[in-house]
Structures are given as C-alpha cells and as structure tokens.
C-alpha cells in the first residue's frame, strides 16, 4: 500500500466513500461501486483459480500446458509421456476430473443441466464421507471426552452443567417437563450467555473493520494521523 495523497490512494478513497454513502441513502454512486465490487470479485476468483489451481493441478499434469504453450517451463505431462514415450502415466486419470469439471459447467445450459449432477454427486459424496468421520471424532467425541471431568472446581461444574443442560435443551424427542424441563431451562441460560458473548465479540469485530477503513482515510490517504 502506498502512503499519501496519490492517485491510487485517491481512487481507493473514492471507492470507500462511495460505499459509505449508502449510510445516507441508496444512491447511484453506491450502486456503481457495488456493481464494480461484484465484477472485480468474480474476476479475481476466475484468474486465481486458473493460475493457482487448474494450471498446476490439471493442465500441467495432463500436459495441456505444453500443448497450448510449447515453450512453457513445465515438465512433460501425461499426454506427452503417452504419445512420445508410449508409456502409461497414472496422471492421465486426471482427465476424469477435467471431464467432471466440464460436466459441472453444463449447468449453464438449461437442456444439459442434468449432466452437472454427476460432479455434484461427487462433491456431496466426498464431503459426506469426510464429515461423517471427522465431525464425529472431533466435534462430538473429543468434546464429550473433555466434558467428562472431575467436579472438583466451580469452573469444571460450570462446563459440565452447561454442556449437559445445553444438550438437553436441544433434545426435542420428549416434552420439556419436570427434571428434563428444569435442565432445559438451565440450558437456555447458558445458551443466552453464549449468544450474549458472541454478540459482544461481533460488535468488537464490526468496529475493528470500520476502524481499518477510517485509518485508511485519515492515516494512509490524508496523512493526518501518524
């Protein structure tokens, strides 16, 4: 980031003020900045994904990079190995990932949209398989394990009572009456403290973000604060 009243900083400041202008009311400058943000953001993802993901993970491995740009500084890919050396290279299997990726893009065409279900099913299967074990291990079992602690201090009692009562509150198979109702009530108290603390932290976070922008205007751009 440059410092001072430069063209670049002035451009950034105008865009900052353009977005902030929404506080007064919706206006064309805000809408312009918003539309620009959406476009630039999409473009950022598009370029980043090409150079950092698809190029090294797919095109280089298959050898497509060398076909498109013969003088590129990359090793031979699976296609070169296959056709020049007549050898099977396991990287050729990445072609299936490429095909699944292109099938995903078919969603852009209404008549061929159903084709995208295959890669979608692949994504759903992968995340389900991964989450099934990891969430059970880390967020259920590990958390339960660290809740089974001796009740020899107030802090430990707070952890055990809070977790158990909170879980009881989320148990909807039986009506919250009697002991269950009492425990669920205690559970709501803990949950309220949790939400309150989260709210406090949210305020903290949002204010920090705004401080960052104000610092940019007054320190970086205008140079009024050292």
């Amino acid at each position: 980031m440059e410092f001072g009243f430069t063209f670049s900083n002035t451009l950034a400041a105008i865009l900052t003020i353009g977005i902030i202008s929404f506080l007064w009311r919706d206006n064309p400058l805000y809408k312009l900045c918003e539309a620009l943000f959406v476009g630039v953001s999409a473009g950022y993802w598009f370029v980043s994904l090409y150079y950092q993901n698809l190029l090294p993970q797919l095109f280089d491995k298959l050898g497509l990079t060398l076909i498109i740009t013969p003088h590129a500084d990359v090793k031979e890919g699976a296609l070169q190995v296959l056709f020049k050396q007549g050898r099977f290279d396991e990287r050729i299997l990445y072609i299936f990932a490429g095909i699944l990726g292109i099938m995903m893009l078919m969603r852009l065409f209404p008549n061929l949209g159903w084709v995208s279900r295959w890669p979608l099913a692949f994504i759903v299967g992968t995340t389900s398989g991964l989450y099934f074990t990891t969430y059970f291990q880390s967020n259920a079992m590990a958390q339960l394990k660290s809740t089974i602690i001796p009740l020899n201090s107030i802090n430990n009692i707070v952890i055990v009572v809070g977790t158990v009562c909170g879980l009881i509150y989320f148990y909807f198979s039986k009506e919250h009456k009697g002991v269950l109702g009492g425990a669920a009530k205690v559970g709501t108290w803990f949950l309220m403290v949790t939400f309150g603390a989260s709210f406090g932290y949210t305020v903290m976070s949002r204010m920090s973000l705004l401080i960052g922008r104000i610092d940019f205007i007054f320190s970086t751009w205008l140079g009024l604060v050292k």
Partner: protein
Amino acid sequence: MRREIPLIITGVVGFTYIIQFFIPHWPFNIMEHMLTDWMLIIFAFAIWLGVLNLMKVSLDRISKRTKDWPYALVTILGFLFIVIAGFFFSGGRRFLDPGTPFDYIYQFIYTPLSATMFAMLAFYVASASYRAFRARTKEATLLLLAAFFVMLGRVPVGDAMTSFLPESVRLSKFADWIMNYPQTAGQRAIMIGIALGIVSTSLRLILGIERSHLGSD
C-alpha cells in the same frame, strides 16, 4: 440414469472416505488421494460455474434492458478489467507478484470495496443494539449482561474502570472467565448437537435416503 448414477457416485465416494479413515492402506489410501486431487479440480470448476453464471445473468439483464441494467454492464466491465489484466498483463503465473496490474487492482480497487462493504456493518450493529437489545425477559437480561461484560472486559477501558480492584478480579479477567467457561459450555452443546446432525445427514446422503440435492426430475 439421471438419478441412479449420481446416487451410486455419492455412495461409492462417501464410503471410500469412511473406509479410508479406518483402513488407511492400499487400495483405499490410493483411492482417497486420487479422489481428493480430483475434488480440488472439480471445486475450481464449481466456482468458475458461479462466476460464469453471474456473467450470464448480467448479460441477460443488459439484453432485456431490465431496471438498473447499466450496473450489470459495470459488473461485466469490472470482471473483464481484472481478467484481462490478470491473464495478459501480469506475467502469467507470477500474476500475484507485488507491482503487477493484478496486484494493483487488488490493492486499490478490490480491497477498499470489499473492506468497506463489510465495515458498514459496524453502523448497523450499533443501530440494532439501540433498537432491539432489550432486557424484556430473564433470558434476554442474561444475554444483555454477558454482552455488556464481554464488550467492556475485552477493551482496556474495562480494566481502567475497575483499576481499584485487585488485578485477578478486574473486568478483563471476568470477560476471560465468561469466554472460557459458561460461553465454552454453551458453544460445546451447540457444537455437539451440530456434529450429530452432520453425522446423520452425511449417512442419509451416502445411503441415498436424502436425495433433494439431485433436483426434482
């Protein structure tokens, strides 16, 4: 065919990951490595799909001259601007190098726009605190008190206000206690609940009981 094959893919891929977790040996480890590599590529295409769809929708708005269509044009121009800069003028794979046009757009256009967009929430969170944060019930009072002590305890002014007290009982320590014990207990209950929900939903998806992601026809 349109539904059966996706169901089989979900089941086979899902089970491969589960089995690999318990038996990280041949052939499951090889399969898992390959599937993971494939996923990185499919994910990239999935995001490209989102980007291209945005362009499609924007072009549609322009061709139909819907309300505010010039802003859709700005979106497309913004997209083309950074894409052309990234692909043709930023040194290819070294496009992220400090000083490239791509880096310039990131620093002086993308950063102020995105950072300010989210920074605006500060104003709305303050306004919401004023209008909606009421101690109407016992539970709401608890919520309010927790927020009050955490907000004060998490900034130096909280300690300054309680500087007459011993250091171990000042507001910052009380905020630490809230975060580390009652807050942690509540978060843990939520965390365990969500984990169990994820486990059951994952199983439903892998077994093909849950099919809503495949659409209706």
